[in-house]
Structure formats: structure tokens, C-alpha cells
């Protein structure tokens, strides 16, 4: 089985952004800064990986920045979320510092992980609302997402948990068990599925018998919605509705964003399994380029304004690398520290 020659439901398709709300200039620029910083950061990360500067592996979210940025922009500060591997933009939106992220990719001694976990993952509830979960086993964050949401509900707090996930991670039983539990108890769990057409190399048609992940929402008696993931306005519009639904105590809400990852599963993956036509199709729908077009036309920004931000981001990333290089590695003497809590 292979992905069909139609790359996107025509109803969702667009090659230009369609603004659906009035937004302050400042916000427009914030989103731009976040998306640009993410793109620049990840390009640097890929280069470092190729040069051997990043050990293990490197994973990018290139092409999916609008989802992470748009969703993060409609969350409340005390909401929690988890990211998997394509949501660096959401970290940046929530205030995580690029230099901190880079130091983690370098395996350096920075909190809270102190070199123990990969740069790909971060958990810090207090500062960013970023929730711990078992990183690697796919789908494991749905049960834990339900657990944080349970805590909110038991405490009668109007907070929401946003579980970002790829569509491949909707196949494991944990996806089903986690949402089932949340739906029974009407917990404030929002599931944001970035459906980029592939789980590693496996096309959606080999992953599931339905066309859309959202087709599964009725199995939990929850709303499921499909939207175009590369238009930040569209992302915000749909995500806002989902989050408010959950916050009102109406239970989980699933949103599936159609998108595309422009890089391999990790930088070791040459994407040879992706048809050239599909790549080209989606490159024309690059979320950052579409957003820039909008900003310079409907949005009323000058290219100078954007260039200034670009330069800022480049500088931040350079600084991040310098910082990461300068921070020490964790001391092997501390390797047994913090295994058990007192």
C-alpha cells in the first residue's frame, strides 16, 4: 500500500494563509519570531549532527512549526502539554531558552535533566507546563495526559492538558486506553494529532484502516476535527475551540492537523520512501513561507522588520551553540544521584 496521489483533501488545501481573526501586530511578530527561531535552530542542529557535534540522533519538526506555535498561542499559562519530537516551537513559545535546548542536545549539565535524557525531550512543569511522560514508547503520553487532566478535574481547576502526538502514535493501545479513560470522566484533555502522512517510513495507509485519525473520535464519543496544519490562523481557530471545550468540562477533543515533515524521521533518515511529488507539493505549502507571504502582504510587515527578527534568531542560535559548548558535561560522580526521591 502507498499513499494515494491526492496529497490533501481539496477542501483543506490552500497555498496561502487565510487570516480569520484580528490580531495585534505584536502577536503576529511573536509567532513569526517563534517559527523563525525554530527553523533556524533546527537547521543549525542538523548541520551540527552532520558534523558529528550532536551524538545519538537529531530530530526536527521542519514543516510543522505552525501547529506547535498556533496551539501554544491559544493555551493558558497554567495549562500543561507534552511534546513529542516536532514541537520545538511550542517550547520556544512557552519561554524555553534556545541555549538551554542546545546544551541539552550536547548532553551538558543543565537542569532538570543534567544530561540524562536526550535533547529531544524536556519536562518542566513549573516553568513551562511541560509534562513528564515515557518519551519513547509511542502513545504513552495519552494515559499520562489523562492523569494530569484527572488531577485538574479533581481539584476543580479550569486547566487543560494538551497532548501533541504524531499520527503514527495513534496506533498503540495506549492511545485508546488513555482517551477512553479521559472520555469516561470527561477530563480536560485535548489531543492534537499532527498527521504528516508517515510514521517513520510507514505511510498512513499501512498504519490505519481509516483515512483520518479524527474518524476515530466517535469511538470515544468526543468531537474530532480535521484541519490544515500549515496555516497558523487555521490552527489557532480550531485549537482554541478544542481547548475551550475541554476547559468547560465537556471532555476530550481531538484535532487532526494535516501537515508534512520536510526532514526525515531523524537526520539519519534520507526520506527515500517519500515520493518526490509529495515533497514538492508540501514545499509549496511550507508554513513559514506562507506566513511570511501573509505578513508582507495582508499583515503589513516590511521585509526589513522580518529580517531584523531573522538576524535576532540567528544570533540567538549562535549564542546557544557557544553556550552549549561552554557548559560542562555532568560529572560522572553524580551519575547515581537522584535515583530515588527522599
Amino acid at each position, binding site marked *: 500500500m502507498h499513499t494515494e496521489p491526492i496529497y490533501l483533501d481539496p477542501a483543506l488545501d490552500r497555498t496561502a494563509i487565510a487570516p480569520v481573526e484580528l490580531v495585534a501586530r505584536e502577536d503576529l511578530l511573536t509567532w513569526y519570531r517563534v517559527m523563525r527561531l525554530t527553523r533556524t535552530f533546527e537547521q543549525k542542529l542538523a548541520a551540527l549532527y552532520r558534523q558529528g557535534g550532536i551524538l545519538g540522533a537529531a530530530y526536527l519538526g521542519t514543516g510543522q512549526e505552525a501547529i506547535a506555535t498556533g496551539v501554544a498561542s491559544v493555551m493558558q499559562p497554567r495549562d500543561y502539554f507534552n511534546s513529542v519530537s516536532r514541537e520545538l516551537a511550542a517550547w520556544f513559545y512557552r519561554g524555553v531558552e534556545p541555549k538551554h535546548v542546545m546544551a541539552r542536545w550536547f548532553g551538558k549539565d543543565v537542569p532538570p535533566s543534567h544530561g540524562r535524557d536526550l535533547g529531544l525531550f524536556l519536562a518542566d*512543569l513549573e516553568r513551562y507546563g511541560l*509534562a513528564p511522560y*515515557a518519551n519513547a514508547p509511542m502513545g504513552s503520553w495519552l494515559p499520562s495526559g*489523562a*492523569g494530569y487532566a*484527572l488531577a485538574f478535574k479533581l481539584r476543580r481547576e479550569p486547566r487543560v492538558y494538551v497532548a501533541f502526538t504524531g499520527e503514527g502514535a495513534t496506533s498503540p*493501545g495506549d492511545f485508546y486506553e488513555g482517551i*477512553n479513560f479521559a472520555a469516561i470522566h470527561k477530563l480536560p484533555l485535548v489531543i492534537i494529532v499532527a498527521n504528516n502522512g508517515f510514521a517513520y517510513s510507514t505511510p498512513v495507509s499501512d498504519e490505519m484502516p481509516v483515512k483520518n485519525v479524527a474518524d476515530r473520535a466517535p469511538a470515544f464519543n468526543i468531537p474530532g476535527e480535521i484541519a490544515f496544519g500549515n496555516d497558523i490562523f487555521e490552527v489557532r481557530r480550531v485549537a482554541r475551540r478544542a481547548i475551550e471545550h475541554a476547559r468547560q468540562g465537556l471532555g476530550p477533543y481531538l484535532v487532526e492537523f494535516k501537515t508534512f515533515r520536510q526532514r526525515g524521521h531523524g537526520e539519519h533518515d534520507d526520506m527515500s520512501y517519500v515520493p518526490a511529488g509529495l515533497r514538492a507539493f508540501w514545499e509549496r505549502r511550507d508554513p513559514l513561507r506562507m506566513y511570511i507571504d501573509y505578513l508582507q502582504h495582508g499583515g503589513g510587515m516590511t521585509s526589513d522588520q522580518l529580517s531584523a527578527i531573522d538576524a535576532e534568531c540567528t544570533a540567538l542560535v549562535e549564542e546557544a551553540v557557544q553556550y552549549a559548548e561552554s557548559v560542562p558535561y555532568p560529572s560522572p560522580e553524580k551519575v547515581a544521584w537522584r535515583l530515588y*526521591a527522599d
Partner: protein
Amino acid sequence: MAAGETMGMTTTYLDAISQALREEMRRDSRVILLGEDIGVFGGAFKITRGFLDEFGSDRVIDTPISESGFVGAACAAAIEGFRPVVEFQFADFVTCAFDQIVNFAAKAYYRWGTPVPVVFRCPSGGGFRGGPFHSQNPEAWFTHVPGLKVVQPSTPYDAKGLLKSAIRDNNPVMYFEHKHLYRRIREQLPDDDYVIPLGCADVKREGRDLTIVTYGAMVHDSLAAAERLAKDGAECEVIDLRTLVPLDKKCFLDSVRKTSRALVVYEAHLTGGFGGEVAAIIAQEAFDDLDAPVVRVASMDVPIPFSPPLEDAVLPSADKIYRAAVDVLEY
């Protein structure tokens, strides 16, 4: 402290667990329960009978049959400040939540510094004709997972005191309660709110001729064997590990240094069981003190069969312990 014999104001092992849960729930409103049929029904073994009425459905949460789902949810609720106690209907089904326990609960604190104060109650063990899926003793798997604590009480007193400690502990604790002890073992419990710290073994019987290191249900079979050996003139020291992680090595190493002989007894399968770890530690750290090989008595390496003569052949027993002890003593 051996199991009491009087039936007056005594408490069963089952009721001791129930009491510990109830008292902790009264003491600390963050303690919540999750599990199958624990609400109206009071749980498959009736440990939580009446809890739903007393604590309400916010704190006594009946779950669908989704071990991985509710274990993951419990871990997250623990990180978020609750102190969930999860009941597996049988320890055998812990396999269905294995990933969440091993890869989430156990590793979160090491990775992020976020404590995961959750207790997994696992009714385990054989001896009542439960067959291959309701008789297993899976504790060894979890001793091989850094970040978990592993507890296995043998008496009502210990069951209560250790469960309280487990609930107050800031780490994920696997708590194995032996089903066959539920209604068989009773003793008088103190009235006060006592706890037994995790990591302290207990000398259930003193002796100078042979150290029997054991835990869980096998404590009772070991004590029975020791009684018989005493009639033969040999005094066995019976050490109940009580917690496997953290492990009180000092307790049994001191004993072996005194007796110079060690027998390790456990109900799980012989191969790969935690008794192998204990034997290896004795062999490494008390080598000079040993006058005989360290011998193990455990279940045979086959699934636990249903039929009585088969199950009896597979499980260790006082008689098998006695015979192994004689061999070690005569070595």
C-alpha cells in the same frame, strides 16, 4: 515477629491492608485509589469494601479494564501532587501495564527530578488452584528496574506498616501482597499509627546453625520448616527481607557470618528469581564465612499448573525447605 495464633482481636493480612489504606486515606486527602471493581464491589478481594461510601467517587475510581491506561494516569496524577494507590486485580496483569511502570514511573525522577509517589498493589502468588494466570510471582522483574521500590510483606503487622510507608514514600513502589495469606494469617495489631520503614529486613526467628533468607508467603513455610529442624536439634535463623528494593543486605550478611550457612527460599520460579540475586550477594560478600554452598528453594521453572498435585509439585513447601536445609546443615 511471627504471625499471631490467637483469634480474639486479631486482624487478617487482608484486613491489615485494608486498614492501612483507610487510615492513609483519612490522614491524607491526596491519597486516591484506582482499579477495577474497587468501588461498589469493594474489589475482587474486598480490600476496599465500604471505601466508595466513605471517600466518594473522586477518590475511589473504578476503572475500565485498561491497566496501561490507568497506570499511566495514576503516575501523572502522582507527579501532579496526588498519591495514587493502584490495585491490580491480580499481579499477573501487571504485564499489561509493564511499559508504563518500567519506562515512565521508574525513570521520571532520575530524568527530571519529578517524584512519582504511586503504589501498585499486586495480589500475587499461588497455592489456591488459580492456574497459570492467577498465581504468578513477578517481583523479580521489578527488582531489575532501577527507580522502583519492591515490597512483599508476610504478616498482617508488616503488611500494614509497609503499605503505609509505601504510600508515604515519594517513589513508585511495587507492593506484592500474597493472596494465599489474605485470610489464612492473622495477628494482633497495635492501635497506634505505626509504619515500617522500607529497606529493613526482619529476623522472624533467631538461630545459630543456618540462615534462611526469604520473603512473602515463604516466610511461613520457612518458619514451619525451622520448627521441625529445631526438633532435630538445629536452630535456623529465618530472615524476612520484607523489601527487596531497597535491600537490607546487612541483616542477612550478618546472619550468615554468624551461622556460616545460607538457604534462600522464594515462591517465584527458580531461574532468574530474586533469590538468585540474594545468593549471588552472599557468595560475593560473605564468601569467607560460608561452610556450605548457598542453596535455593523456589518454584520449578514451569507455568503454575491448576491441578492440585501439579501445583503442589511446583511450589516450594515447608517440607521441601526442610529437606534442603538438612542438606545444607549436613554439608
